[in-house]
């Protein structure tokens, strides 16, 4: 048998494999160079980029919880101009699509970042982060109301012809309502999920561990919730999905694909072990060979099994 192909088309892009870094866990790609090159991934998804530089939240910003972690980075980033100056030249030589994660406090903020970047040939697409729980304004507020999610997607849609991915928040009663409105607004793809809002208390100090009090829960702990949301959204929208949340092994990634994801992104799993992305890519290939099947057949497989 031939070596199975991991190539996949997603929102108009051709990806070498369906494994991406989850935004904010891979910087702009430079820090993990000693472990692997950006083209280990099917595409690079950058840390959130805003119009102006954002300082982020005071420390402590991260804390481990059972099979998970809390973070309240607060989207620290140097702004779109610094991104153009520094990240784009760095990423240029790698033969991998670059998807820019976009953050903002207002709709014009989002539009501004996308307008500024859309003509760069080095940028292949955008992922709107309307789901970050760690900033006071904007962020998650956009992702928890279907109409606001619709509006920000529609405005950004007008600003770019490049693939537009919208990243959804899990902190909602019904994620399918948001997904449907975002689809109607013209998104090409949905990423789900961002982090669950959580917190931890230092009982010796009698105070919240994170300076920001609350933070986003990620890692294997949230995988069942993420998987359920991918499952639900797959049944309600026809856009391709990127499954995110707690992936640490190839088996985890395959679960997401069987639930309906066309690709997956890995965040906390890379902190757990920097070689996780490479192991997941290799493991998916092995699974396909062993099961004598192809990648496309995995997508949504579990839905067909229960019909």
């Amino acid at each position, binding site marked *: 048998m031939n070596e199975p192909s991991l190539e996949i088309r997603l929102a108009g892009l051709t990806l070498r494999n369906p494994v991406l870094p989850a935004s904010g866990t891979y910087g702009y790609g430079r*820090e993990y160079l000693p472990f692997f090159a950006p083209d280990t991934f099917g595409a690079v998804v950058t840390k959130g980029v805003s119009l102006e530089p954002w300082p982020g939240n005071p420390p402590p910003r991260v804390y481990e919880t059972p099979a998970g972690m809390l973070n309240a980075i607060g989207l620290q980033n140097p702004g779109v101009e610094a991104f153009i100056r520094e990240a784009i030249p760095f990423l240029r030589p790698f033969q991998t699509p670059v998807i820019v994660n976009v953050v903002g406090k207002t709709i014009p903020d989002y539009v501004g970042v996308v307008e500024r970047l859309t003509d760069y040939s080095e940028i292949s697409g955008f992922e709107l982060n309307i789901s970050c729980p760690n900033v006071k304004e904007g962020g998650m507020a956009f992702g928890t109301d279907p109409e606001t999610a619709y509006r920000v997607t529609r405005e950004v849609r007008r600003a770019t012809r490049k693939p537009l991915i919208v990243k959804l928040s899990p902190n909602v009663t019904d994620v399918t309502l948001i997904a449907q409105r975002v689809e109607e607004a013209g998104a090409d793809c949905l990423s789900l999920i961002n982090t669950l809002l959580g917190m931890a208390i230092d009982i010796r100090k009698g105070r919240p561990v994170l300076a920001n009090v609350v933070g986003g829960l990620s890692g294997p702990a949230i995988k069942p919730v993420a998987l359920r949301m991918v499952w639900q959204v797959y049944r309600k929208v026809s856009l391709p999905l990127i499954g995110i949340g707690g992936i640490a092994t190839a088996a985890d990634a395959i679960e997401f694909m069987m639930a309906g994801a066309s690709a997956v992104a890995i965040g906390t799993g890379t902190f757990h072990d920097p070689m996780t992305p490479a192991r997941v890519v290799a493991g998916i290939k092995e699974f396909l060979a062993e099961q004598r099947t192809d990648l496309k057949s995995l997508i949504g497989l579990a839905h067909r099994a229960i019909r």
Partner: protein
Amino acid sequence: MIQQEALVQEMKILAPGYYRLDLLAPGLAAEARPGQFIQVRAGDDGSLDPLLARPISLYRIDRNGGSVSMIFKAVGRGTAQLAAKQRGMLMKIWGPLGNGFAIPDAAQSLALVAGGVGMPPLFCLAEELRRARPGLRVELFYGGRTQRDLLVLEQWEAADIRVHSVTEDGSYGRKGLVTAVLEAQLRQKDYDFMVACGPTPMLKAVRQVALERGIAGQLSLESYMACGVGACLGCVCKHKAGYRRVCVDGPVFAMDEVDLE
């Protein structure tokens, strides 16, 4: 940067709750400098508990033997699992990480100030300096709560470095806080440079003392880490230039540039 499964060469209990762990890691030993640290996965392979690696400083770097040593205190889940490692086991590690110490060429005398398990990276520095700059006068001010918190004093002796031992309960050396002893000593003797590693209140006091006397120096900070390689922005400290990552911009910072609250 090396990431590998490293073989545990030796595991030694130094005192109740304190351990020394030696790992066979030639590539790492060849690259590493004093003040750098490694990320250590405490659970067995496949275990999600703990999920994240733990940062531990290098205590000795044996380039010839191709090994590195750490000294750690069991304080929680991760370090408790590290404490259960035994000779012959494999551990996932990556490093060396961080910037390491930088002692100005002009310095003639150096005061090291250690609190508790802040000591190991300072020993690493002292050993290197003894080799590389034999003319430099190095002294250690070493504070702990009680006698058993002062570790490997015989190693410092073997390295021929004067140690000012201080315990809070007076069970060994001078009684009190290490910074008080440092201050007293500074009234008689001067140092060109100071390097401190230990709990934040100690670092603050050392900085205070140093600033008052116009002595330059470096501090090695701790912080919760996720990636350990600079990607997540989780470990930042307040720096006069904004937030800085302890894992790659540090853990060693100039005394006057970080804000210890």
